[in-house]
């Protein structure tokens, strides 16, 4: 700790009095203190850009920090964090990103930061039980937006940023962690609607509603649990049926739950336990060793994996055009994915073994300058399919050297990935003769 400046040292009490760290052992505190760095941000400066996997966990020690929803939601202010509040930890247990984080107000903002790899080492050993008692505003906001986006009809709901703040300020949400079938079963209280919030260890996408543990297909090896967030059912039912936040001092009753029950039934996964462990990672062979063919194969693999209809000829007929595209601009892959009915988001992530492990999968990453499908990314292995090497299981450290680097930051090189998922309206029926009806 001797290398720390006096200014950094003066802020350490704020860090260790923060709720997330208050129960740490003195030894861990000493270890942690030696690694923290003081950062300074100008008013409005972006601390964490939208779509970027956090590089650090930060504690606000001076000023305010603004948590902002995503641009396609109109960048609402979801929360303002004050001195002693910690952010960025969600990346460890959630494997997803939402919105951006900025320095708020017109004065400079100071944070103490800890590299996320260092935080994760502490989290795994000491903090995991504590994280159940922490729910971040952006986490609730993201679950609500995903919930709204996935329902087929348009609901008249209050402003979701306001609803998120209401939920947290009125203790209407709880968290639960589950490590899968080998873990002790946890009780999912019927008083809450349960959403998958951290999907690192499961195939279910963030925002999926689950009613029972057996709906969670736990077939990924992960050091992190499946994180579930329960939101008070009576509150959610009241909001869904009235479109308003409850008036102050209102006691919520369970009388108006019918609409919510229908939505829950509609949106729960239809996975049967027998299918859970039969996961197959598609790996198609390339016709030619060209870039265009590597794109065709990557989307063939990903569509088959996500059970979305796909015909390689559709892309192959554009072969010449594919060859001339700016192959490292990931938005181009997003466009193709969306054309096949997938949801796709470009994500920046540290090209390190830990950075890979925090990346949501499946994803398309650039390996040896061609797109490859990353099926699984864990601490000790990654499963990857590419047109060059087929299906491979390698060490994360062996993969990071082959990733295309987008940017080089002092902390780590940064790569880009396109995180893919099915959309609620994505088709499942494969191409057959009925697809041709339109042509005749």
């Amino acid at each position, binding site marked *: 700790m001797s290398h720390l400046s006096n200014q950094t040292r003066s802020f350490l009490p704020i860090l260790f009095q923060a709720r997330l760290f208050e129960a740490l052992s003195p030894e861990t505190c000493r270890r942690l203190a030696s690694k923290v760095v003081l950062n300074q941000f100008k*008013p*409005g*400066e*972006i601390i964490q850009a939208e779509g970027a996997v956090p590089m650090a966990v930060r504690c606000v020690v001076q000023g305010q920090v603004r948590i*902002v929803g995503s641009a396609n939601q109109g960048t609402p*202010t979801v929360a*303002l964090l004050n001195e002693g509040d910690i952010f960025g930890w969600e990346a460890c247990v959630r494997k997803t990103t939402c919105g951006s984080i900025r320095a708020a107000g017109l004065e400079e903002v100071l944070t103490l930061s800890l590299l996320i790899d260092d935080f994760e080492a502490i989290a795994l050993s000491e903090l995991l039980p504590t994280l159940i008692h922490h729910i971040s505003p952006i986490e609730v906001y993201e679950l609500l937006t995903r919930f709204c986006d996935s329902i087929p009809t348009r609901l008249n709901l209050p402003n979701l940023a306001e609803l998120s703040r209401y939920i947290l300020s009125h203790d209407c949400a709880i968290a639960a962690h589950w490590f899968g079938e080998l873990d002790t079963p946890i009780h999912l209280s019927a008083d809450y609607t349960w959403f998958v919030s951290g999907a690192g260890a499961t195939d279910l996408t963030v925002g999926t509603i689950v009613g029972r543990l057996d709906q969670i297909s736990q077939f990924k090896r992960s050091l992190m649990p499946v994180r579930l967030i329960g939101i008070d059912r009576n509150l959610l039912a009241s909001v869904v049926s009235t479109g308003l936040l409850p008036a102050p001092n209102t006691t919520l009753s369970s009388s108006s739950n019918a609409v919510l029950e229908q939505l829950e039934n509609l949106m729960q996964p239809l996975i049967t336990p027998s299918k859970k462990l039969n996961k197959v990672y598609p790996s198609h062979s390339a016709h030619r060793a060209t870039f265009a063919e590597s794109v065709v194969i990557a989307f063939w693999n990903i569509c088959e994996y996500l059970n979305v209809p796909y015909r390689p000829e559709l892309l192959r007929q554009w072969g010449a055009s594919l060859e001339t595209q700016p192959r490292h601009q990931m938005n181009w892959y997003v466009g193709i994915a969306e054309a096949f009915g997938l949801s796709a988001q470009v994500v920046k992530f540290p090209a390190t073994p830990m950075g890979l492990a925090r990346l949501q999968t499946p994803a398309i990453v650039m390996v040896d300058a061609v797109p490859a499908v990353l099926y699984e990314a864990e601490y000790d292995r990654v499963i990857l399919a590419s047109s060059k090497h087929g299906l491979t299981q390698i060490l994360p450290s062996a993969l990071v050297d082959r990733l295309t680097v987008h940017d080089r930051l002092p902390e780590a090189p940064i790569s880009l990935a396109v995180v893919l998922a099915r959309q609620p309206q994505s088709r499942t029926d494969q191409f057959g003769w009925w697809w041709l009806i339109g042509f005749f």
Partner: protein
Amino acid sequence: MTFYLRFGNLQLNDQQLYDALVQYGLLDPLLERLFLDFEVLPSISVTDTDIFERLTGLNRTEAPVESQAFEAFLLEQAQQYDVSVSVLKSKAIREIQMSKLKQQFEPYIESSFLQSKSSYDQVEFSLIQTSNIELAQEILFLIRDDGFNFHDFAAQHSEGAERNSGGKVGPIAVSSLPDAIASVFHSRRTGEIYGPITIGSQHCIVRLERFYSASLTEALRSEIRTALFARWLSAQVRAIPHQIVRAEPSIASVPQLTKGTNSVDVTAIEST
């Protein structure tokens, strides 16, 4: 024969003079003026009664009928304005001819207004502009989400002249605003804050305060009439070829140009 213009130590020959007119954008106004004075205006007749009306603003029934009385009236007016009678008269005649010429566009004013009504709409809005995009974004959050006062921030942080008025701008024609700002005002949602809208190196936050839907007032009528006239004149002049030629002494110079007697056909404005 070569002409020179001497201006202090500067001496320009005819070619250089022509080049200077082109370079400073003075050739087109000059050609328009020549076209008007030698091709168009001479064909517009002006009566003594017209001159009386122009100089006095009185009704034509009160105009002196006798020629002698009219000359006396002109002399009195010239003394009042401290100019010669001929200057006063030629100035009045030109104004009347221009006025009559512009009147010929009257039938087209309403349709022109209806065609481009939205460009005559006016707005009052509040503006904050800064060259720092991150600051602009944060100011937007502070005003939109945290309830801070727009005008206070404009006075403190805006980098344009609107800083002095607490960010208030207008009323101003929507058509005179940059497209990116004009387009957000077309929704007419007063009180709504938009931004940051990037215009060049500046990032703007705007809030629509009032929207004035355009109506055809006398002032706007005059504005459209002038615009139609200008468009017609420009089109007419563009249609006439011009070039600089080496003139022989016997060839007419500008003052000897034949004054036209063509009637004015403003229907050409339809096709311009």
